[in-house]
């Protein structure tokens, strides 16, 4: 239901847009598109000793996509690459209707109602996919 899908937590995360913007000196950068809807996310990351020093994102997309990117902007600084991968996997788990895995970011649980809306999975995944791609760089 929309009351759940567009719950206050998701709307507020999207509005807050934690980490929105550019990082011109970032060494790790990835842009991913969703050709079905035209949405596009760019993530830029500065890593030091395998830990995120800074992460910025540019999102042309829907509220769910912005909320997912905002979670990254809020929580990624300080995390290591294993934690980033674990939280990307947590998004997949939540969208599959599974409980939020332990030791992952609590905000990801906000996406549990999206599990009922398969057509919106990529909206949530796009920023996390961009992180995965950026870490491969």
């Amino acid at each position, binding site marked *: *239901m*929309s*009351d759940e*899908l*567009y719950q206050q937590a998701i*709307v507020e995360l999207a509005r807050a847009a934690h980490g929105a913007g550019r990082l011109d000196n970032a060494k790790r950068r990835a842009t991913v598109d969703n050709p*079905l*809807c*035209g*949405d596009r996310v760019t993530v830029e990351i500065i890593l030091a000793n395998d830990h995120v020093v800074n992460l910025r994102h540019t999102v*042309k*997309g*829907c*509220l*769910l996509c912005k909320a997912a990117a905002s979670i990254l902007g809020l929580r990624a600084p300080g995390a290591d690459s294993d934690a980033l991968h674990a939280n990307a996997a947590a998004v997949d788990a939540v969208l599959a209707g599974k409980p939020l895995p332990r030791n992952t970011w609590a905000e990801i649980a906000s996406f549990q109602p999206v599990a009922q*809306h398969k057509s*919106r999975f990529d*909206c949530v995944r796009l920023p996390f996919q961009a992180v995965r791609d950026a870490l491969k760089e």
Partner: protein
Amino acid sequence: MAFDPEQLRAEFPILNTRLGGKALHYLDNAASAQIPVAVIDAVMRHETAARANVSRGVHSLAERATEAYEAARSIIARYLNAALPDEVVFTGGTTGAINLVAQGSASQLKPGDEIVISELEHHSNIVPWHMLRERIGVALRALPVTDEGRVDLAALDRTVTKRTRMIALAHVSNVTGAVLDVAPVVAAARASGAQVLLDGAQAVPHGPVDVRALGVDFYAFSGHKMFAPNGIGVLWGKREALARLAPAFGGGGMIREVALDQISYADPPRRFEAGTPPIAQAVGLGEAARWVAALEREAVAAHELRLTGRMLDGLADIRGVRVVGPQGLQARRGVVSFTLDGVHPHDLCQFVDDRFAVALRGGHHCAQPLMRRFGLAGTSRASLAPYNTDADVDALLQGVAEARRVLV
């Protein structure tokens, strides 16, 4: 008897659907319209009493199937006021029909020949011509679109040249609802020796079309947007225009004679219907055409226009809404695209579906050049059918206003 949309709704069982306890408000007719009982019954009757492959079979069911399939062709010919049933080619849909013309024309085209489309075309009327551009080197030229979302016919003079071989345009825009003024297009084509193809996908659901009066060479449309099953569409072509087209697909049913070292093809329409065609779907399309033609056309048009006006007025009252298309009711159909500041179309469509059971469509509507023209990633789109009511429009307006309150 006066036209009564409520009475019409009784013919569409799916409109009784309730979603989360709320009555369905189906406003996605430009993507796929719903099917009346008469069409469902016609398909059911065919599949239970006449199912067999068409042509060449001599047993009784094959005779019945062939008769039903050809009867559907005749109904469509009458719906279009075609000169002959054999000018009607059954295809998989509008996309298949336009590809058939594009691929079938390839052998007549050479590098530098020009195809004229417009900025507002559906991708199905852009991509087949791009493929010719890539394959042969024809040039693709596009008529611009006005701020009101109409093809700018003032640009015909400078866009259509002696090198133009085809002008392919939407009869009604699937995004803005604007109706094309066909006469100047045909006049420009005749002056340059070009052919005209109309994408009628958004026009035929609103009533019979007179292809001879329009003066075009080809007319393409889909069944599923005009109350018929999926998987069936039509290419109408003037007899001499079809005769010039090469077949795009080869297989059974489309040949005159096959040898290992040579081949000759059947005359149209069979030349373009390789393999077993979608028979039951064609029967359904024929019944759908008969159903639409039996509606009180003027009353239905007035009803849809009034609802369109209600929608446009209501949207204008919601802060942050911008309609992409004609603001008035002249030369437009009930296809209304709009944006809501700060809200992505997919969020808006999801929100009104979940909270108000309103079915809209959001995105670029397979019209990316038009989205680019207006500087948009996408729009939300509401589209009407005769069975829509004030309640459907009011639910939409309430949903959009609520989305603004919650999501902005």
